């Protein structure tokens, strides 16, 4: 539907896998930071004069 690749991630992490959680969270944050702020699918505030 036009979401940029890299903005959406799926992972399966057990509550016992703390290290995997840290790793995935870091990777996701990094990947999304590289893409920059989201421009698609953002509702702009209505401009009131």
């Amino acid at each position, binding site marked *: *539907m*036009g*979401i940029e690749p890299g903005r959406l991630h799926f992972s399966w992490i057990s509550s016992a896998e703390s290290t995997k959680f840290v790793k995935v969270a870091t990777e996701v944050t990094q990947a999304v930071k590289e893409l920059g702020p989201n421009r698609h699918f953002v*509702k702009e505030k209505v401009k009131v004069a």
Partner: protein
Amino acid sequence: MQEYTDKIRQIARRLLEEGTVDMVIGFRKGSMPIMNEPCMVRRPQDVDQLVWDSNCGINLANYLTDRKEKIGVVAKGCDSRNIVTHIIENKIDRDQLHIIGVPCGAMIDKRKIASLVEGEITDVTETEAGKVIVKGEGFEKSFDKAEVLQENCAICIHRNPVVHDEMVAEPVEEQTDVDRYADIREIEAMSDAERKAFFDDLYKECIRCYACRNACPLCYCPTCFVDESRPQWVGKGQNENDIRTFHFLRAYHCAGRCTDCGACERACPVGIKVRMLTKKLEKDCKELFDWEAGISLENRPPLDAYRPNDPDEFIK
């Protein structure tokens, strides 16, 4: 077509007279040409309202949701698949139904016909030879039925009902050499930006009337997510993000359930190709889970069952 109509009336009369069912759901002539409307017959003397022709595109499974009485229902291929889905999802009991199966000869598209003629259409009739004759003020035109089919009917591979208690005629031959997903593959091949532009263009005319939802037999939630106000999942205005959210979420709610009956597209007053959204999910279900919705009462739908070998490459 007349023999179908006669047979449907004959069966309906018998069922009502014998008391096998409390009512029969079928079609009657609408007040406009090419627009048959659903019809609920409760008395044997009223069965002569029932008709069958190529304008019976509405999906009658939509009228079965949570009914308590015994119902005779006229069902073409797609209706029968949605009836199966309804039974699987506990929206009606198989024992409540007497399914009058109709081998479907495909439905005609009122929009296609309207685009081929100028002026108001006053009458549309079919001949046995597969011609559709369109009459209006000052014109009369004849088309091959194949030219003016609904798009979903042109690529349909389940014309015969998958469940029925009796049939009105011998099964028709199923189409085997159709490519169901040519248009979807084109969209899949697009870049992300192109795809976003494609979808933005697809539903830009949407007026949020929710006719697609109301016509859809799958959309039976007591409160639809678009109507909910606590929390309000999606804005109610014409903001493009809200329109997009509505269409994509509705499509996702139909994943693994949609039979491509075309009711949504038929109902849309502005001609949005709603099926472009649901068909992708249908294709995915076929490819990933070898699943076609509403084919059998025994198998559970893919989103309802877990298998250890379910595809999960997208999960890291």
